């Protein structure tokens, strides 16, 4: 890594004695206190590992309790999700369908806008415009999601109802569109980095062969940056899957197995909110459902994030 500027230790340390690990040199320059400090700092680093272990432990313990009462066959086989009703069904698919629907709409917004923005910023924008526009776009991702949720419910849905009269007051369309605006910077920022990392010589070679600038962008630069672009899209999708407040407010919290964007739906995240807002006693099956849903959500986003980093690595080490 270019930013690595760790201290080349042996310099001017008489205790180094040619050893590769001068830190262990027993001179009074590294007294007991120095070791204590190092251990304290290391412990801080270990907190992040404990966090991951904590997430896994909490999710798995409660989820195991859940799956003792509900079989995996029901969880993945049933097509209804009604744990809060008298007649309980525990099929996860309605929640997955709702999550998929809102995420798909958001991605359909974020990818074209984000990619166009990235191409403009990397290939056309004058330096000044780039310095202003890039942080301006990132503001979109910094607005709290509760604010976007309010926008979706109070402003965007009524506007859409003017266009589609059949649109319900709570719907996947409005939530998805607003979420799409929110994740544009996830696509544009990382894609711009990837485009920027494409060596100038590739563009020059294409121009030298008579390729126009647009031809060069679409046939040379974009393919060369493809793994970074894919990584950015996966990251944006993962963010949309885990996004909570927009869907909890504007999409309706009604799990149903549908891909119709005009009716209320429930997502995995909005279901967790729904249960958390009520008074569900600890230890009941209703309480445990949120952890079973949580495990599913965690697994999905983790896979996305790992995939995305794979692609990023590819563009860092040798492009395309």
């Amino acid at each position, binding site marked *: 890594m270019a*930013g690595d500027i*760790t*201290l*080349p230790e042996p*310099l001017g*340390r008489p205790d180094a004695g040619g050893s590769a690990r001068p830190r262990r040199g027993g001179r009074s320059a*590294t007294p007991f206190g*120095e070791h204590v400090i*190092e251990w304290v*700092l*290391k*412990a*801080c*680093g270990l*907190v*992040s590992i404990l966090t*991951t272990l904590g*997430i896994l*432990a*909490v*999710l798995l*313990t409660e989820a195991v309790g859940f799956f003792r009462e509900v079989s995996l066959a029901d969880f993945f086989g049933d097509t209804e999700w009604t744990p809060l009703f008298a007649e309980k069904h525990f099929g996860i698919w309605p929640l997955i369908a709702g999550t998929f629907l809102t995420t798909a709409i958001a991605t359909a917004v974020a990818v074209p*806008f984000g990619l166009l*923005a990235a191409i403009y*910023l990397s*290939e056309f924008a*004058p*330096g000044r*415009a*780039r310095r202003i526009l890039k942080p301006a*776009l990132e503001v979109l991702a*910094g*607005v*709290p999601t*509760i*604010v976007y949720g*309010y926008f979706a*419910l*109070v*402003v965007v849905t009524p506007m859409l109802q003017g266009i589609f009269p059949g649109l319900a007051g709570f719907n996947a369309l409005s939530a998805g569109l607003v979420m799409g*605006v929110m994740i544009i910077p996830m696509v544009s920022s990382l894609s711009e980095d990837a485009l920027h990392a494409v060596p100038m010589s590739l563009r020059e070679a294409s121009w030298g062969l008579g390729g*126009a*600038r*647009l031809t060069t962008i679409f046939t040379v630069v974009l393919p060369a940056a493809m793994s970074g672009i894919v990584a950015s899209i996966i990251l944006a999708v993962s*963010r949309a899957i*885990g996004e*909570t*407040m927009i869907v*909890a*407010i504007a999409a309706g919290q009604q799990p149903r197995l549908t891909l119709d964007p005009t009716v209320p739906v429930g997502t995995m*995240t909005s279901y*967790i*909110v729904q249960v958390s*807002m009520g008074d569900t006693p600890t230890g009941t099956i209703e309480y445990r459902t949120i*952890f079973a849903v949580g495990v599913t959500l*965690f697994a999905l*986003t*983790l896979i996305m*994030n790992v995939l*995305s980093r794979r692609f990023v690595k590819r563009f860092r080490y040798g492009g395309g």
Partner: protein
Amino acid sequence: MSVDLQPSGRAHDIRRRGNNLGERAFIALSVVAIAVPLLILGGLVVNTLGDAIGRLDWDFITSYPSRRASAAGILPALIGSLWLIGLTAVIALPLGVGAALWLEEYGGKSRLAGFIEVNIANLAGVPSIIYGLLGLGLFVRFLGLGRSVLAGALTLSLLVMPIVIIATREALRTVPGHLREAAAALGATRWQVIRQVILPMSLPGIMTGAILSISRAIGETAPLIVVGALTYVTFLPAGPGDPFTALPIQIYNWVSRPQEAFLVNAAAGIMVLLVTMLVLNSVAVLLRNRLQRRTRR
């Protein structure tokens, strides 16, 4: 927005080549793709301000919630949010800065450092509501902290720790290596180098990260709902063990009510939230600019 249609960015040397209609159209389209989302956001904020303006007064900030929308205020939510971010800052900043210091100054290329690094990257991508489940299972139930301010703050601390760590590491990397060597050559111990050279040099960058993480914590809603923030609080939390509400929770409560009047309250709450974040972020940008000016010298 004035648009510079003259392509210049990467390729001024070939500025004249292929500057045809298709290219101009593409650039215009791209500029629209950047402008539209920004204009939408701007329009929405202005719209919300319009809804909120009638309720934004001192009474709104100093009143308790009420069943009458016109009398309701955000005092307990505001105080709750202050408690949360205060405690979060006290917990997350030392931990995050400590972790970053270890990774940059001690861990080096060790296997543990690599593992922690991958782990932090993964944590940064975990949805915030999952942190809520962690807080519920670990702090509220297992450690028996109940639905308290402290449980909420601990949850938010774990949530923002990756942000603090990543920003601090970047700041530490801006300190030139020769300064470390010079201090070491003068006989300073590792910790003396860190305390007297590295930390002072990277302080603005660390502060930027700190402010960004706090501003993230202020806007977080979902994990607090899961941890069990209350939605109707008519008292102020007196200590870290007390139940609490927070500004985003109060807004969510108002948004979920069908009456128009409560939506107006939500709009006013949103404006208070946005202004707070705007102030915090402006300070962060100022600090970053100061840092850049100094390191460029």
